């Protein structure tokens, strides 16, 4: 098959370029894209990409494969290769450090902005704070986020306003704390989101939903934050 990989080494390249490599997959097996990258790296050790858990839970290897963001380690070739060809590019919209490694500072900054930690100023009990199964169920579909940035970097609103629009991942986490029965900072959290950009730049394009490797739905969470903001305003 033909693999076309985005290459850029800031020390030696004036500009990024696509490198075409023909490769035979041993045994013709349906391996994961990450395994394919390992094969390429054995031949050319200078190829740079991040990886860690290789099972879709750490969020290191988000990249763009034939035009769609996803995790290389849980994307089998059969799911992305078209006409025996695969184009691998870094996640779009973030500065490239090297090859498919992007600078995620902006993404993390938006995450930090929403105060991604439980706030509860009442004295903690000597045991856990009680939470009913129904209250806990409110966190399902939210807490599972792995911060891979597949969603945020697939979002045109984030491409346009990466400094002002929190982006789908950050907003999913914002709602994760708004929805937690143990958190008491609802008012403060909403006030900090209440501007024309942080939440309202979401135009419901739903790219985030279609690329999330964990099957989460940031658009739905954003809708809930909008409702809470509207309710707080009235």
């Amino acid at each position: 098959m033909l693999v076309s990989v985005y290459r850029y080494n800031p020390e030696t390249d004036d500009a990024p370029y696509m490198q075409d490599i023909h490769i035979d997959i041993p045994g013709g097996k349906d391996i994961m894209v990450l395994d394919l990258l390992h094969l390429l790296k054995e031949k050319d050790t200078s190829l740079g990409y991040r990886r860690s858990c290789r099972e879709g839970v750490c969020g290191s290897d988000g990249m763009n494969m034939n035009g769609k963001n996803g995790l290389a380690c849980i994307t089998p070739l059969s799911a992305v290769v078209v006409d025996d060809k695969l184009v691998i590019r870094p996640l779009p919209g973030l500065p490239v450090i090297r090859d498919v490694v992007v600078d995620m500072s902006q993404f993390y900054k938006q995450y930090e902005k929403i105060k991604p930690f439980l706030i509860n100023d009442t004295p903690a009990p000597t045991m856990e704070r009680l939470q009913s199964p129904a209250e806990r169920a409110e966190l399902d579909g939210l807490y599972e986020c792995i911060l891979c940035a597949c969603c945020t970097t697939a979002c045109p609103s984030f491409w346009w306003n990466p400094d002002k629009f929190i982006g789908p991942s950050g907003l999913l986490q914002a709602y994760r704390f708004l929805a937690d029965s143990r958190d008491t900072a609802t008012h403060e959290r909403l006030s900090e989101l209440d501007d024309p950009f942080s939440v309202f730049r979401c135009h419901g394009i739903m790219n985030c939903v279609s690329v999330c490797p964990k099957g989460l739905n940031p658009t739905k969470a954003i809708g809930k934050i909008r409702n809470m903001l509207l309710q707080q305003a009235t």
Partner: protein
Amino acid sequence: MNELRTLTFDAIVVGGGGAGMRAALQLAQSGLNTACVTKVFPTRSHTVSAQGGITCAIASADPDDDWRWHMYDTVKGSDYIGDQDAIEYMCSVGPQAVFELDHMGLPFSRTETGRIYQRPFGGQSKGPDNPTQAARTCAAADRTGHALLHTLYQANLKAGTTFLNEWFAVDLVKNEDGAVVGCIAICIETGETVYIKAKATVLATGGAGRIFASTTNALINTGDGMGMSLRAGVPAQDMEMWQFHPTGIAGAGTLVTEGCRGEGGYLINKDGERFMERYAPNSKDLAGRDVVARSMILEILGGRGCGPNGDYVYLKLDHLGEEVLLSRLPGICELSKTFAHADPVKEPIPVVPTCHYQMGGVATNIGGQALFPDKDGGHTIIDGLFACGEVACVSVHGANRLGGNSLLDLVVFGRAAGIQIEKQMREGYEAKDASEADIQRAMTRLNRLNGSSEGTAVAEVRKELQATMQLYFGVFRDGESMQKGLKLLGEIREKVENLYLDDKSHAFNTARIEALELQNLMEVAEATAIAAEVRKESRGAHARNDFADRDDENWLCHSVFFPADKTVGKRAVNFAPKTVEPFPPKIRTY
């Protein structure tokens, strides 16, 4: 020689997984100038892959539960070479550490009364006289590690911890007194090498499961802390003790939580027989991990394995029903579909014992202070060096870790190391500055690699190392084949000492990191192999065909690998808990 830039902190934590971030949190909250140096962004650490839960007697599932029962299970699980003072500390302090996690926001699953949900895990009882299966493992569905790691990162953000993300620690720097005063580290993004100066250095670098070809471990689990400490001359304890998790997905190696069996799943052979009933009549599929792993291998060797080559067994879950599977084990359903092409709702998962956890490591006391065991069975404290989590051997796991005890180990001893350092700093701990020569000594390895003009390629040697460990030092071992393995390791070491780094660029050079990681793997593999050959008995995870029985007369002790002359000594196990009677060694059955 250019002088390196120096970054200065009171304390640094090397590693941003569960143990490292719990230690960093404690230090940041104490107001010390602390940095967490981590080669991956913290939430990419391997703690994220822990699934089933954190074992702790919080008395939710059973209001009468008692941490002493948990202590007994852990001592028994360790096959009696876990240190009982450390186990006592972990099990008794545990509930407080777990409640802290809830207060930080960890999204635990809940019971109808609103308490934390606990599930049964292997090796759990209700005390020495009551083998009834307990349910003591606190869970966030089957994503407990992910929930814990993110919660700790979030708590650190709240506390304002300094993170040096994507910085790779290369080697420890020691001053003229032999105290550890920081480390050499590379900023991966820019390639800049610096000296990070610190009065306290905490190794929280996790395990080294990547010494084996088949492992549940992440690609980053390369034993960097062990490599650094062994090169600095620090002995390593119980390195022959490696846990093979019964249920890694055949072929892929990805973990399938013991929680599956806790929720009622069981293993079957090709005849559909629930074979664990034969090997562990009482606990069956929830016997100790070492016991279950060996039973599976015996089934496979006995020709009762499943699949075209008969080289795995099945984990059956479909009888639990779709609702239980999707609510309690959603992550497993996902992983199984992705890596085994099997939907657990309808069909069993093909599984094999897979290298999972390093019980040995840097010997420490309860406060995480690294110990230097001597050849006479005594020890001294190494000033400035601490360890916690999988890299440490405190030792709460002994010869076999119980499921759910690793996450508890992380938070309890990460916290304890932080408390100990805070105390020492308040008492005015000082260390002499490292000289330029001290710093250059720690640069030796990196300089050699950066100057390499020929040698072997990393990927090739790594495969060779992993295959050798897998073949000669796996679930069952024997003297003759280990001798063969040791000889091969000697040849591999020569290649590892002469690796060729063909890409010498600076920006995000992962080739350089992989070469340094391979050298760390080599140190761990060698310590493992030598210690395994020397321990002439079978205990916990260390099972020898040529010495099939436990030998308490000669081996009811820790092994200590001395890197200076590559010999192995012995160190006494602690049988002196402070508040309870010690648990004497008994025959271990489940």
